[in-house]
């Protein structure tokens, strides 16, 4: 997180606000609700209280305007700049303006007023922009559900105002994963038309052959319909789809577009009802089979017939011997899996095992984050 120079803040705990005009995009009560909820995000983690004024000058004057709207800091028409707010202080200080040329919503469509307002009120209370892409104070818009503050945001605002004396319980979003953390584990990995997607918590890294650095993005900002966390994913090149698993449901992507008719239940693949989650999935192009890993077992699925192969599930430990953790224990569960040139890459915690599919032998053991050019 970042604070403004000289750590600008309100020198009082009761801060007033006034909504000077409304957007026609939403009902008046929806705007009131979004503003109320956005201020509450900050008041639950600090001793701050907010009071609404209906006339006169408030500390935080809130309004919608387009282009030049009275502060010599013009907006730029649709897209681009969404809103701005001033650091705490007299006059313009704390004031928060929204670009009327944007479309304001109360759902996942661009742009959700509550989320943008919560970000702007962060500035109005003294927060600068954070470098953490999972934080609310990251300067780029992304949609997410649930309580919008991350641990990083809370640390920042509490450096200014301290915690809420009533110790209200909140569920902050975790900080963004660090790709070069030696202890990094991943949730899922898949190819997508020559790119590689690596899922971790609410995020995924996109590795494009023409990009030198992986790009970290929130899952929900790319696919708002997907759940927050992904358990497994695989690409079927022949069908040109990527299947994404979360809990007992699965989604299909064609390129970056969700295929209509999903989510479907994983049990349609032939899993018994006792299977509630798939840990890892990988498609073996050479055989046309897809392997699914669930707890200590794995399954083989025939993509052509659309049926599970008989004789499965089998034990991971028995059929993939030689995968040893640092303490000598055999690996019996898999977090993620991929396949390339006759080698299976089985990920478990912070290690990946390069496994010769034909020889049934571990060829190499690497750190999980080797995948992310670390």
């Amino acid at each position, binding site marked *: 997180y970042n604070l403004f120079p000289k750590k600008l803040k309100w020198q009082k705990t009761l801060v007033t606000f006034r909504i000077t005009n409304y957007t026609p995009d939403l009902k008046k009560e929806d705007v009131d609700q979004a503003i109320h909820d956005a201020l509450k995000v900050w008041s639950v983690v600090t001793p701050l209280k907010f009071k609404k004024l209906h006339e006169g000058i408030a500390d935080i004057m809130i309004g919608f305007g387009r282009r030049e709207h009275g502060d010599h800091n013009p907006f730029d028409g649709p*897209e681009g700049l969404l809103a701005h707010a001033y650091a705490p202080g007299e006059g313009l200080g704390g004031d928060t303006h929204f670009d009327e040329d944007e479309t304001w919503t109360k759902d996942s469509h661009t742009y959700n007023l509550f989320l943008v307002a919560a970000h702007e009120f962060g500035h109005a209370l003294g927060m600068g922009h954070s470098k953490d892409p999972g934080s609310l104070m990251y300067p780029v818009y992304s949609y997410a559900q649930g309580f919008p503050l991350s641990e990083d945001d809370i640390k920042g605002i509490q450096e200014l105002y301290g915690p809420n004396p009533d110790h209200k319980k909140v569920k902050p979003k975790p900080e963004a994963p660090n790709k070069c953390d030696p202890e990094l584990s991943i949730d899922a990995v898949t190819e997508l038309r020559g790119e590689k997607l690596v899922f971790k918590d609410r995020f995924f890294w996109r590795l494009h052959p023409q990009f030198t650095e992986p790009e970290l993005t929130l899952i929900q900002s790319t696919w708002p319909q997907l759940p927050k966390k992904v358990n497994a994913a695989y690409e079927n090149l022949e069908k040109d789809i990527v299947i994404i698993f979360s809990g007992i449901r699965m989604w299909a992507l064609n390129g970056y577009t969700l295929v209509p008719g999903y989510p479907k239940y994983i049990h349609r693949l032939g899993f018994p009802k006792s299977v509630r989650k798939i840990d890892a999935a990988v498609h073996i192009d050479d055989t046309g089979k897809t392997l699914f890993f669930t707890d200590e077992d794995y399954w083989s699925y025939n993509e052509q017939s659309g049926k599970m192969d008989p004789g499965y599930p089998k034990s991971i430990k028995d059929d993939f011997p030689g995968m040893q953790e640092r303490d000598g224990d055999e690996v019996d569960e898999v977090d993620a899996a991929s396949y390339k040139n006759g080698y299976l890459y089985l990920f478990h915690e912070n290690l990946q095992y390069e496994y010769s599919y034909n020889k049934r032998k571990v060829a190499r053991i690497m750190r999980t984050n080797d995948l992310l050019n670390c």
Partner: protein
Amino acid sequence: AEPLPGNKTEKWLFAERYLRRYYGMQPGLLGTSKSSDVMTEKIRAMQSFYKLEVTGKLDHNTLQVMKKPRCGVPDVAE
């Protein structure tokens, strides 16, 4: 994603506007060797902030991040 600005000059002007607004780059310095050093430094600061590869060059990744919808408050305080 929206298409990125087309030719090299357009990209450069687009990036210059962005860096002036969010990274405190002084206007009117383009066209001299000194100004391109300033611009390179500002691009590096922006790339570092967004955890991109720090090259000082206007590559595809950098321009893509510049095009994303965002808040109008500068990332780097003056």
